[in-house]
């Protein structure tokens, strides 16, 4: 039997014809990387290939690595297999990977979302025969509200807290969500302060996107100057000694998981905003349809449920185990993860 173009192995998604891995979770010689979240771009590969704009991101996180940058749609051939990167709209510089060999086309999405967030290059439909899709939010319970409305709520929340003389602490992953929040916070209300992990990543991205001004919180930052302003912090800061400086404060989290009432309460957060960098139910179904693919492989998320539904809709769909999306719902220690724990997960939801 002919070997499939992409296989799911113990190290990651493998293209044997080119001897290259896509977002591998174990160290390999050659890795094509979709985006900068820790569960997709891990330590220890000899050679990284990724989008040009992702180069500074993964360099910041992984340090001194051997990396080659590519443009959107630029075809590069390895052992007669044609590869190209296409925007995934998940976070800044996130790609889908298109793989073509002997007329057969596969697309691996990494993580993606269909809504244009205004800072990531918008998701592009790539026609293919086999579509490897994430399904982090592959349940009909997930339906996103347009971000314009969510940001209206977020800014209103900030203004209300300010009226009560409280500091607004907003949690979001230091890569992706934090910048998306930053871009749309209303600076007419007040100043935007940042946690170190977010400040560092934002600095890396400033050449690519026009962000409002931020002030890094240091040990010299006075408690009084924070009052009424907003603080962007990674979820891991919740409950840490660092956050005590913000007293009196109100916390909020912006994530797709905030759809569930229980999720907010389990995390002991005051307010939840439903804002995700992944597709919702309809987004997944529409993109799958648009690719024209007949074979669908569902990776991380509610993959068993989602692939069963796809089969009922007439697709040849199955599930494959990967190590993506580990701890996406907490994204807990992503800042530390990137530097200290190369095998643990931590990505933006």
């Amino acid at each position, binding site marked *: 039997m002919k070997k499939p173009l992409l296989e799911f192995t113990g190290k990651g998604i493998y293209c044997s014809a080119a001897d290259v891995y896509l977002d591998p979770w174990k160290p390999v010689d050659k890795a094509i990387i979709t985006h900068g979240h820790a569960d997709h771009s891990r330590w220890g590969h000899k050679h990284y290939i990724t989008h040009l704009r992702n180069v500074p991101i993964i360099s910041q996180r992984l340090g001194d690595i051997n990396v080659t940058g590519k443009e959107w749609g630029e075809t590069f051939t390895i052992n007669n297999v044609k590869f190209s990167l296409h925007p995934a709209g998940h976070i800044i510089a996130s790609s889908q990977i298109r793989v073509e060999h002997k007329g057969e086309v596969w697309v691996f999405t990494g993580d993606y979302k269909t809504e244009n967030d205004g800072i990531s290059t918008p998701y592009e439909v790539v026609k293919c025969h086999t579509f490897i899709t994430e399904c982090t939010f592959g349940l009909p319970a997930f339906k996103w509200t347009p971000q314009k409305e969510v940001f209206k709520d977020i800014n209103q929340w900030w203004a209300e807290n300010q009226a009560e003389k409280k500091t607004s602490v907003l949690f979001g992953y230091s890569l992706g969500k934090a910048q998306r929040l930053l871009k749309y916070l209303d600076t007419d209300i007040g100043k935007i302060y940042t946690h170190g992990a977010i400040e560092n990543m934002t600095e890396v991205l400033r050449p690519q996107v026009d962000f409002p001004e931020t002030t890094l919180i240091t040990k010299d930052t006075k408690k009084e100057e924070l009052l009424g302003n907003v603080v962007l912090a990674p979820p*891991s800061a919740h409950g840490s000694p660092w956050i005590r400086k913000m007293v009196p404060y109100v916390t909020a989290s912006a994530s797709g998981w905030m759809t569930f009432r229980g999720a907010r309460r389990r995390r*002991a957060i005051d307010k939840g905003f439903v804002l995700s960098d992944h597709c919702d139910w309809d987004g997944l179904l529409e993109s799958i349809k648009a690719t024209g693919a007949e074979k669908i492989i569902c990776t991380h998320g509610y993959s068993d449920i989602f692939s069963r539904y796809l089969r009922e809709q007439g697709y040849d769909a199955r599930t494959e185990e990967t190590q993506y999306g580990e701890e996406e719902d907490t994204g807990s220690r992503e800042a530390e993860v990137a530097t200290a724990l190369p095998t643990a997960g931590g990505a933006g939801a």
Partner: protein
Amino acid sequence: MSKQLKRVRQIARLNGRGRPHFARNDDTMKHFAQLIKTLDSTNKTNIKVQALADYFNIAGETDKVWTIAILSHRRPPRPVNTTLLREWASELANIPLWLFEESYHIVGDLAETIALVIPSNPSSTEKSLTQFLEEMIALKKKPDDEKKAYLYENWKVLDYYERFVFTKLITGSFRIGVSQKLMTRALAKATEIDEDILAYKLMGNWNPDKISFQELILEENESDYLSKPYPFYLAYAIESEVNDLGDVNDWSAEHKWDGIRSQIILRNDEIFVWSRGEELITDKYPEFHAFIGAIPNGTAIDGEILPYPKGEIGTFNDLQKRIGRKTVSKNLLKKVPVILKAYDLLEWEGDDIREMAFIERRKLLGKLFHSVAEPVPNPTQAAAKRAIETAVSSTAETSVSSAVEIPLHLSETIHFTSWEEAAKERGRSREVHSEGLMLKRKDSPYLVGRKKGDWWKWKVDPLTIDAVLTYAMRGHGRRSNLFTDYTFALWDNKENGEKELVTFAKAYSGLTDAEFRKVDNWIKKNTLERFGPVRSVTPHHVFEIAFEGIALSKRHKSGVATRFPRILRWRQDKKIGEANSLKDLKDMIV
């Protein structure tokens, strides 16, 4: 009926009954949904109380009564069964039923799942909460197609949160961390009526469909003041050696009973049973009605409600069967009757005697107990006897003399002349189903709240067993990003002789933060399956689990219930084969 007409009638109705309330009213379902949302979106008690108080200040009269009813679990009966709700919701959401069920399994709440899967709607409603509830009451008798039409109509026009609240009103109670106690506090804040009096007013059977806010809450009755309890005095656990407490002769000791701390008050031929959380629980324990007539008016007893199956003190597990039941069946009353183990007297002959020395109060309590134990016949008591016999459907054994069995026991004072002697009695605690000893300074008054110095808890050392970690769940608060809530299992033999692990307890405390992080990291890498927030893990780690008590239980898979299980230490030196068996655990039952 038009909204306006309804309002006119409402006011007319109020005029007929008492003073009308012309405050600015907002009696829309929208307002109620907003209240629920606020209550649900904070963990802070003060904010909840304030939100409820604000609501009570501006909600319409009938909506207020309904809100009180809903938050005190007095919902109208469910008009549509959940099978139909699930079918209809998946139909309207245009998804297969199995997918709805899977979503429900993950979301964990039926009303929330329904609200989520049905396409969202920007519109809203002007109908009042009362109107919705009246419609729901009427709906119960309607044929299925009308029920379906009603649900569709409302599901389609309500926005997401209102749809959730609407469906919740149909399916069940709101779990939003609002106890009756908290609601009563808010009501007290809004009406400036004493909280204990409101607690009394809200007791018993009242029908939200028939009673007005005026009648239920505002009208003043002399009898309201009858029920007022004294604040409880709470003890701390002993911190050092008992010897440090000084002269042994200054102290009185008794067993520390493991039940519900309660205050029972008799005034004006009425009885009031209060729990430590200052909730009125009179209706839950009808046994104590036998006190009326047997115990004189103007008495307040501090003690412990204990289960008394088969004529002896049971375990807390027995009591669990009674806790949380609003109404008690005859069968349950027979199977798990309760008694009051009395240990203090706070009011006697109508006087507050809390300033008296403890031993003096105990003397009066002893006197009271003996007058009840050796009763002189009187007519009221005979009536009480008949009452209890009807309630308990005559469990009176022939071995009991004709004297009425009053469920009042005295918490015996332990006589000891040295701390060693006291320690010996403490060692016997498990045999008598107590948690250890209580030490009380003989000359101490009855204080308010938790105060150090005069009362000490001297608990027995816990039992321990080595168990295997099998499931893990995320923690709460600052631990919410770690897996810190664990389920533990013990070995058991299957019928075919194979060994299997059987779950026996959950625990979420006892490790250091560093240990929790280590275990958390291991769990994330060794997950077998995920069930919502819960993960099953490869059996690998052994932990020593400590617990206070143990009892046979039909409700637990292992057949055993443990009390206050917690992690004592991580036994990294042990392999799972060295963990204990279920038999080892059962052998601990005395």
